[in-house]
């Protein structure tokens, strides 16, 4: 495939996710404005951090003056999943220069990472594909979050339009793309229950870590009968 075809494939894959992220970005900007952040500050947070879940949690924690330690700690916990995500996607990035890897991963988010993982199941993930997917997604998040901060309160309660649920629906749809039968069913059940429990008992941001780790543990256990020839004897 030429780089143009690769770029077109990237755009084709990202646009539904980018569209679903529009109300999320507006909502984020409006919430941040409600905590006293200026549109310029919202723009800077989005361009520097670019992590939806962590940014929502940060706005939840925001106070004046900013509690820097709590904000950085919460961000690190929520984004700890990126360590596993980058370890998983990095070997599938084909033909990337060092600069393209280190630049490209700066804006790795759940959506573009999940789409790249999906792409990797049938095609090599090329730089043209990756950047065609990432650039519009980043521009969309910058535009919508800043716009949300400007129009802020004028949007009204986003719950009335169900906009707050778009994120949840999108992630469920993305999960279906990774379905591999029984092992995935156990993974989803364990991750969902552990995350919801941790959210109730310990509060955010612990639910992300608890859910992800329990999901992996469930996959490990459920896949037990797959390992006829155990290469390494598991200590657990």
């Amino acid at each position, binding site marked *: 495939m030429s780089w143009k075809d690769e770029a077109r494939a990237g755009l084709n894959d990202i646009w*539904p*996710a980018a*569209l*679903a992220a529009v109300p999320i970005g507006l909502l984020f900007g409006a919430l941040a404005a409600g905590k006293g952040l*200026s549109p*310029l*500050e919202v723009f800077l947070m989005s361009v*520097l*951090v670019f992590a939806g*879940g*962590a940014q929502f949690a940060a706005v939840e924690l925001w106070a004046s003056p*900013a509690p*820097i330690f709590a*904000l*950085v700690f919460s*961000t*690190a916990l929520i*984004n700890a999943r*990126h*360590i596993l*995500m*980058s370890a*998983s996607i990095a070997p599938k990035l084909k033909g990337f220069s060092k600069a393209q890897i*280190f630049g490209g*991963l700066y804006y790795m988010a759940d959506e573009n990472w*999940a789409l790249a993982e999906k792409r990797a199941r049938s095609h090599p993930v090329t730089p043209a594909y990756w950047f065609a997917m990432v650039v519009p997604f980043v521009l969309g998040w910058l535009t919508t979050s800043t716009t949300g901060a400007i129009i802020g309160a004028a949007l009204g309660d986003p719950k*009335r339009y*169900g906009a*707050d649920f778009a994120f*949840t*629906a*999108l*992630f*469920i*749809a993305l*999960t*279906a793309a*990774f379905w*591999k039968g029984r*092992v995935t069913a156990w*993974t989803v059940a*364990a*991750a*969902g*229950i552990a*995350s919801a429990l941790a*959210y109730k008992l310990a509060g*955010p941001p612990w639910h*992300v*870590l608890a*859910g*992800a780790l*329990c*999901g*992996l543990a*469930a*996959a490990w256990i459920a*896949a037990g009968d797959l*390992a006829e020839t155990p*290469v390494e004897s598991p200590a657990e």
Partner: protein
Amino acid sequence: MSLDPINLAAFLGMALVTYLTRIAGLALVGRLNLSARAQAAFDAIPPAVLIAVIAPSALATGWPETVAALVCGLAAMRLPLLGVVAVGVATVVALRMVA
């Protein structure tokens, strides 16, 4: 347009830890010699992460959200990404009117 220096420091701290998590995985690549079982756990990273992020919204908010999440799960077997989002949002709006 105001920019508070303490806020800027917070953004930079958040950006730094986020970027570190995004490149930390590079250090793991090639060091993992995975058994079939560990490979299955590794393959489970995408669904485990996605579900862990949204579980509170789906399971710990109220019954309309939980039912809408189940509807999304069913819709996801048939519909493309945006179709699932449309069905999910429409369902949650309708159920919230009843709730």
